[in-house]
Structures are given as C-alpha cells and as structure tokens.
C-alpha cells in the first residue's frame, strides 16, 4: 500500500512561494498507515494486536527413485482476528513451476545475444518438460467431508461450510504431491541435486506443503502470488512432521528430532550426546561413514524406509533436507541458560571447508545476533550444503559454496561460505521470528539482516571482506539511474541486491555510526526486535520504533533513504572570512596599507619602474598630491574613535578587541538526500578538528546553507566527510580550496608509470608537503573491498 503513494504528495499542497523547493523535513505521517489499537504511534504492538495461528501435523514421503514428494497435512487454523472468515487461502508455491504459471507468462524478454550457453539451453528444455506444481488430492474437514477449493495461480481458496468466527478454530486435511525440481538445472529455493559419480541425491525441501496464507490487520489475506523474488510470510504455529525416507538417508529439519532411537544408530546417539557439551563440533556422521553410506548397494527393488519425526514450536514454516551423502557435525552452544545445538550437514564434496567453518559460523551468528536483538529461542540451528546457494527457513538454512574437487578453495569461496551462513542463520531473527512480510517488503528482512550480517562479519576477524555495509561500497549504486526506492514492492524492485540488501544495510550503518551513535541506535534496534519478536511488523512499526526509542525525529532520514532515490552529494561552494573591524583609524590605515603594498604590480608597472619620469626631471611639476598619502590618519579621526570607545561599556570594549576569524562556509546539497555535514578543518598552525553539523541545518533550505565557524586560528583547508561515512558520491566538490580529483583510471595509470624508487619516495612524502597535490585521492578512495 505504501508503494503506491508517490513522492508528489510529500507535502499537502504545492508551495509556489518557496521556489518549488521540496521540504525533506515534512513529516512522513501521510505516507504511513494511521496508528490504531493494533499498531501504536510509538511503533509498538497495540493493546488489540492480533495475529492468526496455524498448527500442522504432516506426514510426508520422499520417493528417491522418482524425486517426488507425497504428503498429507492436518492443519488447525485459529481465527484470532475480529472478523468472520468465509474462506481460507493457502499458498501453493510449487505452482510456480507449472508451465502456465505467472512467473513464466509474465517474464520479460532477455537479450539472447551474443549467444545462449548450453547450460541455459538445457535449463530451457528441462523447464519446458518439467511436470511441476502441486497435485491436490483432496481437501476435507475434520470429519473427512470434502471441502470445495479453487486453485488460483500459486494460491488455493478453500470455502468453508460456515464462516469461521472470531476465536473459532477449524481443522482441515489436505492430500498433496509434487515432483521435486532439479535445483541445479532449473533453480529455486528448494529442490534436488544429483551426483552422477555415485548416483546419489541431496534434497533440500522447502515451500513444499500447502501453507496457510497470512491474514493480517493491515492487508487482510496476503494475496501476492509467488513469482520469484518476494519470498513469503506465514502464520506462527506448532509443527509435528513425520518424514518417511530411505533408511540409509540422513534427514535434517526444522525442529527437534523426536525419535532418535528409531532412526539413528547407537553410536550416532552417543556422539550427539557428547556434542551437546563439547567445546568444538563433533562428527555425528564422519566423512568416512558418509562415503560408505553413499556407496551402499541400492539395487534392491523396494528399499527400507525410516520415518523421522520432528517437532517444532512457534515457527512460521518448516523445511528439511535429506541425503545419503551427508556428513553431520554438531556442537552444543550455550546461550544464556540454554543450549542450542548448532549442526551442519554436508557431503564429502564440501570438505574440508564445511567442517572447518560451517558450524563455527552458526555459533558466531547466534552470539552476535542474539546480542543485538534477543537470544535465539529455538533448540537447533542447522546449515545444510546442497544445490541452493543461500535460503533460510526456521532453524534450518541451505548454503551452497563448496571447495574445488581437490579439496582446496579460494579466499572468495571461504568468505563466501562464512558470509552466506551468517546471513541465512541470521534470517532466523528477520523474518522468521520478527515476522515481516518479505513478499511485500524484501528490505525488512534482507536489509536488516544484511546490516547485522555486516556487524557479525566484522566481529569474525579484523578487516573481514564484507561485501555490503560500508558507505563507500554503495556509492556507485546511489549515483546510478534506473532505481526505485527501498520502499518498493519486492517484485518491482530494480537492482535487487543493491536495493533490498545493500542500501538498507548501509543506511542503518550510517544511522548507527554517524547520526544516532552506537548506544542510541543499538538500544532502538533492539527495542524493535523485542517488540516484534513472534509478531508481524510493518515498515511503519520499524520507522516509528527507531524514532521512539532513540529519541530522535528521523522522518527526514526515512524519507530520504527509504522513500526516495536521492543520494548524498554535499559540496563546499565558497568560504568567506569576516573579521571585527574595531574602527581604530590607525589600525584600519595600517591594514589597508599592507593590503595595498601586497597588491602585485602589473607587468607594465614593473617594466615602467626603470623609466625616467618627467616629474623627476622637472621637480616643479610636483605639488601637494604627489606626496599626499590617502591612508594618512587625521587627528579628527582619532578623536572620534576615542569618543566612540569611551561610550562603550566594558563588555563591548572587550568584544571590539576580539581578534577572531569568522568564516562563513557555504554548502550546497547537490544530491538531494539530507545528511549531516562532517567537516574536517585543517588550520595553518598544523592543528585540526572535526565538526559534526547535524542534518537539521538543512531544515530551512535543503539545497544551500551557510555555516559560521568562529576561530582564533586561520583555516588552511576544509574537507567534507573525509572518512566516507555518509556515502557522499562525489569527492571532487568536498574540498576547500577546490581540489581536482583524477579518475580512478588516471590515478592508477600514473602510479603504474612510476618506477619503484619514485613510488617509495612518494610514500614517504610528509603529509604537509602533499597539500595541494591534485592527485592525492580518487573519487571513491576508501573502497577497500
């Protein structure tokens, strides 16, 4: 709803008496839903906040011979809304793989030039022939009576015989099946990966059962279909899931395993027990055991099966993974007075990278995210390696990076793995527990999660190569065209990674480091997480909570960073110096004399100086004016000044004698985005200081502003945002005196053309000597990604 409101209504009426200038400090209330008894003006849940609940009991069978899933679910839906419901909607996300799905029909044409690789051609053919989508066997009530249902794209409406009244509950049963997609070939958030070398599969099963659509106080039924980017939001509930799979497969899932005695060997159960109190991860299934398992003879016509029973409380979804290839390691991680089992499942193809880093990345994420929000509330946290590069579900996530076939790996692969695990485990907080609607607003979980990911990465090791979070890294995107605001519906977002992940994460980092400071920000951010854990926040709730808990009106910040595509580009336009003129005629004359003498002679004056002058040849031509000094002070002037001073009181006389410099610095806001002005001042005496001018300096005129700096020293130079804290996209106009900043290319090329001795000499050049050097720094220095 918010996305449909244009910036044209930023102010109530057009103001023709202010040059059409926008008012970036105008409250954003008219863009936000009005506070009510469900959602208060402070950003907290209101006294009549409600949300629905859906509890599931699911029996599902994984057919490894046909890569097919067959299941039966019993769902108990509790209507806690104040509205009677005549029908219920379910999500059927697998229908995205139907050949008539909206995601295919509404797809945009790509460029097929210069050529289509074979892998893409294979994907095209596989997708065309893949019989995807849910097959709904039956929908019945608790008495096994059929209920009418209608499938609409990736949703299904089930009509109830009677409206489900407020506080009422209803039980439904749905039989379903679908063919599992080859995720390596076709892609997706779940699917299988086939390993030709040993004939085995890894299954990562997600969005796999008919899931009750969220019904909310602000949108009713969430009726946005699943077409790709926008993930999902669901209702919280308890799950009991029984997964039947070949008996030589390991199964990892959301929740706690209820029947280890039926599906795990005695040594495995014993190792699991040891792992709960171990200092480091323990193999529950070793690499050797996994290798033996994947090589077992599976030629028998009907393999034996195991049924794994998992129970999960207060989760909004359930996912699982299964394979014969899994190595399994685990460690009990203390979090407050609880132990969380951090566990990883991966094939030998993922070694040695995964046993070294996966579970360690899980426990690190549990520590850091818990500190910034609330303690991780679930009993297990699982990372699985398979075909999906990175996707999150409650307590379990799928992560793709693997080393080379020889077991070696690059730095990019190593940090790619650690980062994706931090990110996907981090999603347990946003949106799995703080249940924002990522099908509507991707940034609410991806942006917040990427921000915390950045903090967690920086606590992993010094100078961790984070891809997102630093202001300098978002400059290219901020300056770019073809953007939409962060506050854009997920499917309509342009430059998705930068928009939904990078920009909000960077905005929050700037809010933390530069605008609010760490203490205030961290308090407010934590407050948001605490208020909305196991609840369903909207953007309004986030914006309002951050202002409410930080004690700062941040409307200007949300407006600029989240509702607009403006960027930060502040410039120093000019600097004027004023000094107190006491009016002492002798001082004034002396000053003017110095200024006059300092005026350079013109070239003609210089050359004419040697010429013999007529008045020197004929002195009689000289008169009064030849010797008259027009700066000469008369006694009358002195008397008048003394009289003026005598008329002043002591304070006024003291002010008159003050020798301070009054600098008026004129700033321009060229990018439109409001920002504090961080001004570095270098003085002639070698000292310097950093001035932090609040963003509110722009509230009278968002385009140009003057700032007075009073100092007894002489300013030598000024620089805006020297540490690149604000994502200012243009460094060339950040300096006074102006400074030419060469292109990155020219700077690099000029450095390349120096010989090593020249480079060494340049490196030891004292800073003071480098002042004025036009080629000191590229436009985006500080980008050390």
């Amino acid at each position, binding site marked *: 709803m918010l996305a449909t409101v244009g910036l044209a209504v930023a102010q109530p009426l057009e103001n023709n008496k202010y040059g059409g200038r926008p008012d970036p400090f105008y409250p954003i209330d008219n863009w936000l839903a009005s506070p009510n008894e469900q959602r208060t003006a402070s950003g907290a849940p209101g006294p009549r906040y409600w949300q629905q609940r859906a509890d599931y009991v699911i029996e599902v069978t994984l057919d490894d011979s046909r890569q097919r899933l067959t299941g039966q679910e019993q769902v108990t839906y509790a209507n806690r809304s104040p509205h009677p419901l005549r029908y219920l909607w379910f999500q059927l996300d697998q229908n995205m793989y139907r050949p008539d799905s909206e995601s295919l029909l509404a797809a945009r044409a790509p460029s097929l030039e210069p050529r289509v690789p074979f892998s893409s051609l294979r994907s095209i053919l596989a997708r065309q022939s893949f019989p995807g989508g849910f097959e709904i066997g039956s929908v019945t009530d608790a008495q096994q009576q059929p209920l009418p249902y209608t499938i609409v794209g990736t949703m299904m409406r089930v009509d109830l015989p009677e409206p489900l009244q407020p506080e009422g509950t209803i039980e439904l049963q749905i039989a379903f099946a679908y063919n599992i997609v080859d995720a390596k070939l076709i892609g997706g958030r779940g699917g299988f990966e086939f390993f030709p070398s040993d004939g085995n599969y890894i299954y990562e099963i997600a969005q796999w059962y008919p899931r009750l659509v969220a019904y909310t106080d602000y949108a009713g039924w969430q009726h946005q279909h699943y077409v790709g980017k926008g993930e999902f939001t669901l209702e919280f509930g308890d799950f009991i899931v029984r997964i039947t799979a070949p008996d030589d497969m390991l199964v990892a899932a959301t929740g706690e395993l209820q029947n280890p005695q039926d599906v795990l060997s005695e040594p495995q159960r014993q190792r699991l027990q040891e792992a709960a109190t171990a200092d480091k991860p323990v193999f529950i299934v070793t690499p050797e055991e996994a290798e033996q398992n994947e090589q077992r003879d599976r030629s028998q016509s009907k393999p034996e099966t195991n049924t794994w029973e998992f129970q999960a409380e207060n989760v909004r979804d359930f996912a699982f993974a299964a394979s014969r290839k899994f190595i399994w390691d685990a460690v009990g991680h203390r979090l407050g007075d609880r132990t969380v089992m951090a566990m990883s499942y991966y094939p030998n193809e993922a070694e040695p990278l995964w046993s070294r880093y996966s579970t360690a990345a899980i426990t690190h994420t549990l520590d850091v995210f818990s500190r910034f929000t609330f303690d991780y509330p679930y009993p297990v946290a699982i990372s699985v390696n398979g075909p999906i590069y990175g996707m999150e579900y409650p307590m379990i996530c799928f992560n793709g990076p693997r080393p080379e076939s020889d077991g070696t790996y690059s730095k990019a692969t190593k940090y790619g793995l650690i980062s994706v695990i931090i990110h996907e485990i981090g999603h347990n907080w946003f949106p799995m527990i703080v249940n924002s609607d990522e099908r509507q607003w991707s940034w609410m979980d991806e942006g917040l999660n990427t921000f915390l990911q950045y903090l967690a990465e920086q606590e992993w090791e010094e100078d961790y190569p984070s891809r997102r979070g630093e202001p300098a890294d978002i400059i290219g995107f901020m*300056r*770019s065209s073809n953007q939409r605001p962060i506050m854009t519906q997920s499917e309509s977002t342009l430059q998705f990674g930068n928009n939904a992940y990078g920009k909000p994460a960077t905005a929050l980092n700037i809010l933390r480091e530069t605008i609010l400071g760490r203490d205030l920000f961290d308090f407010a951010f934590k407050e948001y997480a605490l208020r909305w854990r196991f609840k369903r926040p909207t953007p309004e709730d986030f914006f309002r909570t951050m202002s409410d808990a930080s004690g700062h009106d941040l409307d200007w910040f949300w407006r600029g960073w989240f509702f607009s595509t403006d960027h930060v580009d502040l410039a120093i336009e000019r600097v004027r110096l004023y000094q107190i003129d006491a009016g002492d005629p002798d001082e004034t004359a002396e000053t003017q004399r110095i200024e006059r003498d300092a005026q350079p002679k013109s070239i003609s004056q210089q050359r004419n100086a040697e010429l013999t002058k007529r008045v020197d040849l004929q002195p009689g031509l000289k008169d009064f004016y030849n010797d008259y000094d027009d700066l000469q002070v008369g006694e009358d002037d002195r008397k008048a000044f003394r009289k003026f001073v005598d008329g002043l009181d002591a304070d006024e006389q003291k002010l008159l004698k003050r020798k301070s410099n009054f600098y008026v610095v004129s700033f321009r806001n060229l990018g439109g985005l409001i920002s504090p002005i961080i001004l570095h001042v270098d003085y002639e005496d070698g000292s310097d200081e950093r001035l932090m001018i609040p963003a509110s300096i722009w509230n009278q005129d968002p385009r140009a502003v003057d700032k007075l700096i009073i100092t007894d020293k002489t300013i030598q130079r000024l620089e805006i945002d020297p540490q690149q804290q604000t994502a200012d996209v243009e460094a060339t106009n950040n300096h006074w005196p102006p400074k030419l900043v060469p292109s990155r*290319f020219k700077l690099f090329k000029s450095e390349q053309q120096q010989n090593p001795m020249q480079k060494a000499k340049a490196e030891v050049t004292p800073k003071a000597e480098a002042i004025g050097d036009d080629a000191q720094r590229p436009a985006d220095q500080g980008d050390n990604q």
Partner: protein
Amino acid sequence: MIAVFTALLAGSLLLHPGHSTRVELQWNLQSERIELAIRIDHADLEAALRKRLGRAVRVEELTDEQAQQWIAPYLRETLRIDHGKLAPEQFSWIGWERKRASSWLYAELSPAEPPAAELSLKILTLLEVEPELNHVVTLRRGHGQTSHVLSKEKPVVVLSTKPLDR
C-alpha cells in the same frame, strides 16, 4: 520460448546474492581511447574464469602476469565497441588492483575506425555466469559524470567523443 528462458534465468536469481560491478569510463580526447576501470567481486571473477578456462582459478593467488594472461583476454572478449569485437591491438591492459573481496581492472580500448561523434560500448562481462548482474557505470566527461545501469537486456552505454563546448 523466450519467456521460458527468462523465467529460467529468474530461477537462478532466487538465490540471495545480488551481483553487480562498478564501472568507470572516460573517453580520452588526446589518446582517442576509452579508459575503463571495472570493479569485479572475486567470486564472480572466479566463476567466469572457471567457465572460460575449465578449471578453478584463485584470484587472490594470481600474479600480475597471470592476471594479464587470463583476466585481460577475458575482459577483452566480453567488450564490444559499436557492436564489434575487440582485436588484440584495440585492447591495452593497464593492470589491476586487488582488494579484499574484489579487484579493479584497468584497460584502454581503441575503436577500430576513427571515432564518430558517438560510440557505443557493450559490456558483456560476467553476464554468462550471472545473467541478472548489473554493471553500474559512471561515465565521466569533463568535470561532469552521468550514471547508467547496464544489464543483459541493455548492456550498452554510449560515449560522446566530441570535445566539450567551452
């Protein structure tokens, strides 16, 4: 069929990383060459080199000579001026700067013919491994800069070769 193709590309997009590069371009009036700087994430560069060379390459371990040997030809072959491939003599590898998670690559590009008032540069780099990748381009001209977002659908940016009016 094309729609299916797009959807398949979108399918690979379902994953979390969003891929982009940063490109800075400038037409040098004196040398009559395009000056190009492009920042590429190492993971993307490694994926492209793996596809091209058929084996794994660790960017953080490459010497300058290896970068010139492997990265430079890849870059040259993924650029087009006025839709034409670049002959080796049209491409000058200036070097690279390796950072923590990405590298800046520098090259000069010459048109095959004396340049007209405008020429187009098509950037196909990485699109074969990340079809949804964006090249975020900053085009410098004099003291001014304009930005462009290139994609597989629109991979071309147009540069003016005329001197700025004084």
